[in-house]
C-alpha cells in the first residue's frame, strides 16, 4: 500500500482544517508578540533581548503545539472521525506521525514571529543558526508529543485543555526560562531535569547567547530520547485506550 499518500493527505487535511485557520494564524502571531511586548514594557531599562528571546520562542512553541493537538485529537476522537483513521490500513505509528506532523510544523511556524522581531527589530545576534533551528525543531516535536500524551488521556476537549495548563504553566517556571535552575530550591531541581522543555530551552540559550547550563550534546541526546519515549508512550496509550 502507498502509505505516503495516506500520510500526506492526513497532514494536508489537518493543516487546512485546523492549523491554517485564520484564528490559529492570528493566535500564532499575537501570542509571541504580546509576550515580547509585555516583557519589553516591564523591563525597558534592563531589557536584554538575548535573555528574553529563548523564552518567548519556547513558550510560543509549547503553547501552540499543545493547545492545537489537545483540541484536534480530542475533537476527532469525540466526533468519531479518528475511528476512520484507525480503520485505515496504515500502521498506528504512521498514523500518529502524520497527526503530529501538522502540530510540529505549526510549532515551528510559531517560532518565526519572535525570531523576526528579535533579529530585525532588536538586532539580536544569533550565535548559531543551525543549533537554533535544531532546538526549535526538537522543542516542537517534544512539545507536540507532550500535547499528544495529554490528548490521548483526555475524553473531552475542555479536559485536554485543563490537563495541558496543569503541565504547561509549572513547566515554564521550572525549565529555567525565567529562573535559572541552579537558583531553584534543591528539592525542586530534579523536577526541572525530568522536563523535556528544560533541554530544549538550554539548546536555544546556547544557540542565541551561549548562556546554557547543560552540555549541548546531552541536551540533544536527551531530547531525542524524550521524543522517542513520548511517541511510543502515546502509541501504547492509543492501543490500550482506544482499541479496547
Amino acid at each position: 500500500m502507498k502509505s505516503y499518500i495516506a500520510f500526506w493527505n492526513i497532514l494536508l487535511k489537518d493543516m487546512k482544517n485546523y492549523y491554517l485557520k485564520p484564528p490559529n494564524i492570528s493566535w500564532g502571531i499575537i501570542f509571541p508578540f504580546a509576550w515580547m511586548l509585555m516583557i519589553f514594557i516591564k523591563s525597558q531599562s534592563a531589557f536584554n533581548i538575548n535573555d528574553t528571546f529563548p523564552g518567548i520562542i519556547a513558550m510560543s512553541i509549547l503553547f501552540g503545539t499543545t493547545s492545537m493537538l489537545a483540541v484536534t485529537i480530542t475533537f476527532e476522537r469525540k466526533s468519531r472521525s479518528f475511528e476512520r483513521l484507525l480503520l485505515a490500513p496504515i500502521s498506528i505509528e504512521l498514523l500518529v506521525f502524520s497527526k503530529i506532523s501538522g502540530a510540529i510544523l505549526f510549532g515551528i511556524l510559531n517560532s518565526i514571529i519572535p525570531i523576526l522581531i528579535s533579529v530585525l527589530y532588536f538586532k539580536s545576534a544569533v550565535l548559531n543558526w543551525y543549533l537554533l533551528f535544531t532546538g526549535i525543531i526538537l522543542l516542537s516535536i517534544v512539545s507536540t508529543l507532550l500535547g499528544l500524551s495529554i490528548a490521548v488521556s483526555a475524553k473531552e476537549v475542555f479536559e485536554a485543555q485543563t490537563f495541558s495548563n496543569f503541565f504547561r504553566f509549572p513547566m515554564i517556571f521550572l525549565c529555567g526560562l525565567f529562573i535559572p535552575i541552579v537558583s531553584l530550591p534543591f528539592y525542586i531541581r530534579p523536577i526541572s531535569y525530568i522536563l523535556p522543555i528544560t533541554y530544549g530551552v538550554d539548546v536555544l540559550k546556547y544557540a542565541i547567547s551561549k548562556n546554557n547550563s547543560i552540555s549541548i550534546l546531552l541536551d540533544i541526546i536527551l531530547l531525542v530520547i524524550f521524543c522517542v519515549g513520548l511517541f511510543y508512550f502515546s502509541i501504547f496509550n492509543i492501543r490500550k485506550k482506544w482499541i479496547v
Partner: protein
Amino acid sequence: MESIIEVKNLTKNYGNLTAVNNISFCVYKGEIFGFLGPNAAGKTTTINMLTGMAKISNGQIFYKDNNLTTKIKKFQRYIGVVPDESNLYEELTGYENLCFSASLYGVFRSKREKKAKELLEVFQLSEASHRRFKTYSKGMKRKLTIAASLVHEPEILFLDEPTTGIDIASSRQIRNLIKKLNGNGTTIFLTTHYIEEAERLCSRIAFIKNGKIIKIGTVDKFIEDIKESNIIEVLFDSISVNKNILLKKLNQNFPDVECTFKNENTIIVISPDKIDISPIVSFLSSNNIYILEAKLIRPTLEDAFVKMTGIEIDIMKKEKEKK
C-alpha cells in the same frame, strides 16, 4: 460455498462482562450475512473485533483461510466499515470526505477524484457534493458514510445498523443500494435489529442474544424449523347458516383437516400435511358462502426469532429507538 471470513470461538471480555461469548460462524463470498439481535447482544462488538477496533479476548479470525487474529491491520485494506453513527469530517464537503477516505487506502489522486464523483452520482448526492458534511440530513450522512467505505472498492462491507434513525425513504434507498452492491459482488456483513430488513436483505442470518449465537441459517430454514402444521385462512363475506352446523359439516366432509372459526368472517383450516384448498372452497361456495380470500399462513421470521430467542420484537425496536 467459499468462505471469506471464518470466525472460531470468538470471545470478548470487558472485565467480568462477557460481551461476545465463544461464537463461531462463516461468511460466504458474495452473500449478505446478517446479525440480528437486541441492544447489547454483542453485534457491534463482533464487528469491532473483525475490523480491528476492539481487541480479541479469545478465538480466531480467518480471512480466506489466513489466520488474521493478531494481524487485523493486514485485513483492513479489503474491508469497508460503516459504523452505526457517521464518522466523517463535519468540516469537509461530501466530495472532500470521499477523496480523503480514498487517500487513506493509498488511492492516487486522479483515481480517487474519479471514484468520488462516481459514488456521489450512484448515491444521488452529486448536488450536495460541495456542501459541508455537517449540513447534510441524517439520511444523506448515512449514504455518504456508506459511499466513503466503498471508495477503495472493498471485498467485504461491514454495515452496523445501516438504517437506524433515518427516514423511510432513505432507508428504502439504502436497502436498494445494499442489494445492488451485493449484486455487484461485494460480500456484506450487516447487523440490524429490524427483522424485516434482515428478512428482505440477508442470504443467511445469525440470531444473537447476550453475546451468544442462538442459531444461524437461511430465512426459509428458520421458518421451516418452527413450522409445526400447515394453516390456511379462509375469509368470507358473511354466512347465513349456523356456525356450529357448518363446522360440523366441514369436519365430516374433510376428516383429515381441523377447521375452526377464527372470527365471524374467517375459518382456519389446520393440517399436519399439505392442504388441498379447492374442495374446501367449493364446499363452502355450495353452502352459499361468498369467499373473499383463501391464503396459506406461513410462520414469519419474526415468529422464528421470538420462538428461538424469547425476545419480543416490539420491545427490541423500542429499546433501539430509546437509544
